[in-house]
């Protein structure tokens, strides 16, 4: 595998994998470590390694197994508020696709103009009502509606060009 291919894999998958590992481990510090370990392994072995047939499955599976290894090694028991154990879902292709789509949308949102992005995040991700946003930002409800429509349009455009 050459450096360009490695770079491409890294740029495409790194952030989505960190977020996926974070879900699996419930802890940020370890999430990055796990993904770094997987990529370091590929980098070190890149000369003997051809191009991966199915990089998506390879990367997500590796991260999943590394994360589970960590959980087992640490004998971690992550307990939720109600005292029940958090169950980690097994690797599935749909989960990987879901994370890659989330990553694309996330990157598109990051590229929105500032006001548009702030309103979109407050409304669609943080779940605030239009009225609450209007009060907090001192703007008209109509402006909020317009900005959200604009945000969806821009995100859609971004997604289509990827």
């Amino acid at each position, binding site marked *: 595998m050459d*450096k360009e291919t*490695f*770079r491409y894999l*890294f*740029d495409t998958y*790194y*952030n989505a994998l*960190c*977020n996926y590992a*974070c879900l699996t481990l419930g*802890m*940020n*510090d370890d*999430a*990055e470590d796990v*993904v*770094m370990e997987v*990529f*370091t392994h590929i*980098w070190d072995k890149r000369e003997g390694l051809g191009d991966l047939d199915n990089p998506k499955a390879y990367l997500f599976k590796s991260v999943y197994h590394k994360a589970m290894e960590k959980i087992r*090694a*640490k*004998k*971690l*028991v*992550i*307990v939720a*508020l109600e*005292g029940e154990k958090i169950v980690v879902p097994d690797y599935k292709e749909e989960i990987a696709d*879901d994370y890659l*789509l*989330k990553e694309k*949308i*996330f990157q598109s*949102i*990051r590229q929105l103009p500032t006001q548009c992005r702030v309103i979109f995040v407050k409304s*669609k*991700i*943080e*779940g605030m009502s239009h009225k609450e946003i209007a009060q907090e930002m001192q703007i008209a409800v109509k402006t909020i509606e317009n900005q959200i429509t604009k945000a*969806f349009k821009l*995100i*859609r455009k971004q997604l289509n060009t990827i």
Partner: protein
Amino acid sequence: MNLRDNINKLNESDGRKQADLIQMWKNEASSNLQSMKAEWEGQLPVDQLKGYQQYPVAEAFEKITTEPYHKVVPMWRKWAVAALFTGLLAVSGLYLYQRASANVTIVAEAAIHHHKLNDGSEVTLDKNTRLDYDGERAVAIAGRGFFKVAKKESGASFTVELNKGKVTVLGTRFSVTSLPGEVEVAVEEGRVKYEYEGRSIIINAGERMKLSEQDIVSSPILSPNQFSWSAQVLEFKNTPLDRAIQDIGRHFHQNLSLATEIKSAGKCLLTTRITSENIDQVLEELKLLFQIQYHKSGDRYVITSMKC
């Protein structure tokens, strides 16, 4: 025609037919346009993005792909390096010797003890607690301690060695219990790292970690009295008595429990402020309030009956 049928038709037909269909459909009604928009927005899982974050991708890439720098070193340089290394070793030995000589041991025996360390950090030690201090940013503790660690501009971390494991922090407020059968770390502010036998866990504000057998178990702090012992004030406001009993036990670091026959303790509510120095005074107060009866065997207190 409903939206689903339209989409299915679109998927089945080729490019030109698709364009015609869309045009036809668009002409049908503007309400269709609205539902098309809703369909499209519905497909984007934006509401699932909560907690999704950006990690430092570029830094990670640099870290992985920068290879160690290899170069042939002339012989005389190797000798110079060796000499320098020996010198350093001698100096660091001297330094370590000096550090060792700066060790301080503080023992709180009969009363809770507040102490200010050289680096500006403050520590409260429970009765029967021993603290060994290296004079800088490292302590070892046996017993129970509450720390307010001063943050250093240099970023130097502060470490607390426990009976089992080690806690590393930068600047924060937390308590530790370090006894042969009991290891607990609870964080009031900031976050700390707990390490034990090659495993590590980050404990955030409002969380506590207990070592149970060999498992590291973390859970949220539910009681407002988690750190009450260090301030020596225990406060209850309409607290169910079974919870209050747990808090009182933790506060005085005594094994206090309700006999299993008592089922109604959750219905009794307690509102009071306790500044007593020992558990017997508190139990006397509960005797007046709830007519409790208790017995003591060894270091265990068991409440055997009560009335609300």
